Structure formats: C-alpha cells, structure tokens
C-alpha cells in the first residue's frame, strides 16, 4: 500500500464571524486510506471536512487560517482555481441531494460541467460510475426516469456515483448514512470498502460502529479541537486520552 500523504492540514483555524469553530487542527490524510472524523454534534467535524474542498467559501462571514496542502500545494493560495480543486475532491452530503433531472443526467452533470462533450465517453463513464457505486443493476432500465423516484438509499448511491464520475482523487463523505436505514447503510459501507482501493476517503460519522467498521484512521474532535487521532483499532481499543474513551464508550456525547 502506498502510504504517501495526500492531504496535510496544518494549524487550521476556522471562524464563523466571531465564533471560532476550529482551533489549531493539524492532521494528515494518506492515499487509499479511509479516515473517520468522529465527535459529538457541533464539534466542528463537518466544518473541518468542508474546509478541505473549500465549501465553506460559500459562507460570507467565514474566515480560514492555517494551511491545507493537497499534494504539497496550498489549496487556500489565491492562485488556486476553486472549481478545478472541487473537481479533484468529490463530496457526498448528509441528505441525498440528486438534481431534479434523470438518473443519467445526474451522473453526466459533473462530466458536462467539466467540459466533456463526447457522447460515447459520457455514456461509458456514467455506466462505470453507476457500477462502481453498486447501483447499476437497479437503475440500468430506468436511466432516463427522474432520479427523484429512487429510494433514499438508492439516491445516496446515485449521489456517490455522481461524485465518482468526475474521477476525483479524494472523496469527502459528510454523514452519508444518517438519513438511511440499516440495510442501505450496509450497502454504502461495503461500497466505501471497495472504493478505498482507488480513492482517499474522509468520512464524518455519528455512528461509532460505522467508524470502527469502515475506517483505517480515526480522528476524534471535541469543541473544535482535534483531541486524538490514530489507527482506528488503537483508538477504539486503547485510546490514550480519557475523553476519547468516554466518548467512544458512550459515557458522554
């Protein structure tokens, strides 16, 4: 396994106006690893995730300090093309959010906005992505029907396929299973296991078992601070800090 550093976060501070949501976080993410960000609601883990593809730029009063290096280059450098950056970093959101378009158009969208016009190429890539997201068999006969007719779990896998179609290097997942039932959740988790062969995955989750099942590295956040990070096995069996242990065993949070 290649253990090279894909993303390097150095002394990241994040502010919503006066409120400091992240305090001096430093963390590395490696290629082909799944990292889980855990912690109680409001601890900043989603904010942290959204700093990585600069989604927080959309919040007018927000401010970022520190550095995030993607392959050694600072993504907050003024010369960085945010649009290009986001096509390298895919994102799956908390609630399934397919566009009110057909299933095909949902997946083809990212390709089209990234300038791919070749019809055959688009068709191939759509099929590949749907297969990769393990939903092809369920939708292959209804590609030109609305994506809104799918179930919640199917919609979420479609959103994953949509993110994969642009061939990102990194996949950010913000509580991707929080709106899904256990069976759909299991499908997504199996998918994450498959996908880590080709992507660097960072997942925010509220579900301890999920973090334990899918991730290689776990980072525990509390009140905007990165409390502890390490191999998932170690974090869940022999955490160094009492705070981490209390959270993982359900004594608070």
């Amino acid at each position, binding site marked *: 396994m290649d253990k090279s550093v894909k993303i390097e976060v150095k002394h990241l501070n994040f502010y919503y106006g006066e409120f400091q949501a992240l305090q001096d976080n430093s963390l590395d993410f490696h290629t082909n690893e799944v990292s889980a960000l855990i912690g109680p609601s409001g601890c900043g883990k989603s904010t942290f995730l959204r700093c990585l*593809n600069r*989604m927080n730029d*959309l919040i*007018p009063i927000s401010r970022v300090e520190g550095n995030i290096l993607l392959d050694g280059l600072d993504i907050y450098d003024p010369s960085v093309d945010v*649009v*290009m950056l*986001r*096509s*390298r*970093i*895919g*994102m799956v*959101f908390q*609630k*399934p*959010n*397919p*566009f*009110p*378009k057909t299933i095909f158009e949902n997946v083809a*969208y*990212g390709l*089209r*906005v*990234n300038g791919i016009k070749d019809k055959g190429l688009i068709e191939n890539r759509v099929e590949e992505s749907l297969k990769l997201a393990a939903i092809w068999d369920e939708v292959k006969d209804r590609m030109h029907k609305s994506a*809104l007719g799918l179930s*919640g779990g199917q*919609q979420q896998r479609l*959103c994953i396929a*949509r*993110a994969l179609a*642009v061939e990102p290097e990194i996949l950010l997942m913000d509580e991707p299973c929080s*709106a899904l039932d256990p069976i759909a959740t299991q499908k997504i988790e199996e998918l994450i296991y498959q996908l880590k062969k080709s992507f660097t995955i960072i997942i925010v989750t509220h579900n301890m078992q999920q973090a334990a099942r899918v991730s290689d590295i776990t980072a525990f956040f509390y009140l905007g601070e990165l409390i502890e990070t390490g191999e998932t096995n170690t974090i869940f069996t022999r955490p160094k800090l009492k705070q981490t242990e209390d959270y993982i065993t359900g004594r608070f949070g």
Partner: protein
Amino acid sequence: MANTRQITERTMHTLFFVVASASIVMLFMIMIFLFMEGIPIFNEVSVKAFIFGKYWYPTSEPPDFGILSLIVASLSVTLLSALISIPLGILTAIYIAEIASKRVSEIIKPMVELLSALPSVVIGFFGMVLVAPFLQNVFNIPTGLNLFNASLMLAFMSIPTICSLSEDAIHSVPNSLREASLALGATHLETILKVVVPASLSGISTAVILGMSRAIGETMVVLMVAGGAAFIPESIFDPVRPMPASIASEMAEAPFRGAHYHALFATGIVLFIFTFLFNIVADHIAYKYKQVGEATL
C-alpha cells in the same frame, strides 16, 4: 353545556363557509352577467364574423362588428411586452436570488415590488408625456402613441409580478442542490443555469404567465398610450386598439342594450377567455412540475 359548544362550532363553520363562498358567488354572478349581455350580439353577426371580422365600425350605418384587429392588437401588445418583461424580470430575479449580496438584494427586491404599487394611470401618463414624444423624435414616426410604447409600459407593469414570483421560486430551491453542483466542480454560473433555474422552472413559468395575464387585461395604460386605431398593425410603431381600451373608451357612448353595447360585452367575453386560459395554463404548469420528496423542492 356540550350542546351549546356544538351549536357554536356549527354556527362558526357555516359562517366561514358563507364568507368563503362570497367571492365565488361574485365571480359567477359577474360571469353570468357578462355572458347575458354579450351573447345577444350573435343575433346580429355570427361568432365567426365577430372574431375574424377585420372591420370594427360599431357606429357606422350599417355597423361592422369584427374584432380581429382588437384581438391582434391585444395579443401583439402582450407578446411584445412579454419579450421585454420576461428577460428583464427573470434576470433580475436571478440577480437578486443568486448573485447579489444579502444587503443589496434586501434593497432591490422591495424596490422592484414597489414598481407594482405605481397606479397604472401614472404609468400611462409617463408613456404619454415622456415616452411618446421621445419615440416620435428618435424614430421619426407620425405618433409615439403606438404598439411599442404600450408594450413598453405594460412590460413595466408585469416585471414586478414576474420578478417577484420568479425570485420566490429560485429562492426555494434547496441549498443542497447548489452545494452538490459546486462540489462537482461546476462554476457559479453553471450552477445557476443548469441546476437552479431548471429546478425552479415551474415557478418561473407560473410567474411569466401571471405577468402576461396582467398585461393582457390591463386597460388604463393601453387606453392612454396604444394610439387607439382599430387596424391590424403592420409594424411595432403602428397605433393599435387592444380589447380593454376599446371597451373602456366606447362603453360610455354605446346605447344601452343596443348592438354596440352587446358587442362590447362580447369583446369582454373574449378577453375573459384569454385571461382564463392564461390562468389555467399557469395552474397546470405549477401542478404538473410540483416537486415532491425530501431532497427536492
């Protein structure tokens, strides 16, 4: 005790029912009246001759009751005004909802809506005194009171409706769709044009149609600035006589329950059918493209 309460409840239900029915009863009474007064003209001319007749000389001897030129005038004025008001209204709505900062949009939106607070007679006055001489000089045409002037003034009147309703529709597109699009590497502009606008298309279409139905039924403006000539226009600078203008200007001099009087009511029926169709289409679109489900609209 329980009995008194039940009686109060029932009385209240009835009361609310009566109040709610009042406007519907009014609508039907007006419709019945409109048809009762309009239908008798068809004893004098056939429906076909009335609608497709090119000559409107209601006071000649024998009179001509053909309203084709009035229908064409109404439609062309509405269409031309739509060509002006639809892009302006929708682009303004997109700017307010998607591009302007919160502070700017909080100032602009109420101001656009204030445009609809202008009484139509004031807009007509503006068109008559300022726009008409301007058009006459710039384009060197015999009169500034014409199809183009009327369309321009009507566009001013439909822009607030189109803009305000479209803005509401665009605003109600869930943020998660914008984020999904941006996260895929789409630009702000691509997100607006390919995701946000298509997702709010039903609301925008409804806005457009309601704006146009306002324009087709508007009376005072066309009475003042359309020029009033009952001919089929050949250019956008020809004076025209849309249906509402014709009714408003002639009703006072038409002999009560005479042929002219009935013809004007029949014109009213035709106008009513147009606005009725506009509203049905608007309703239909709003219903057909209504989004359902959690992650949608």
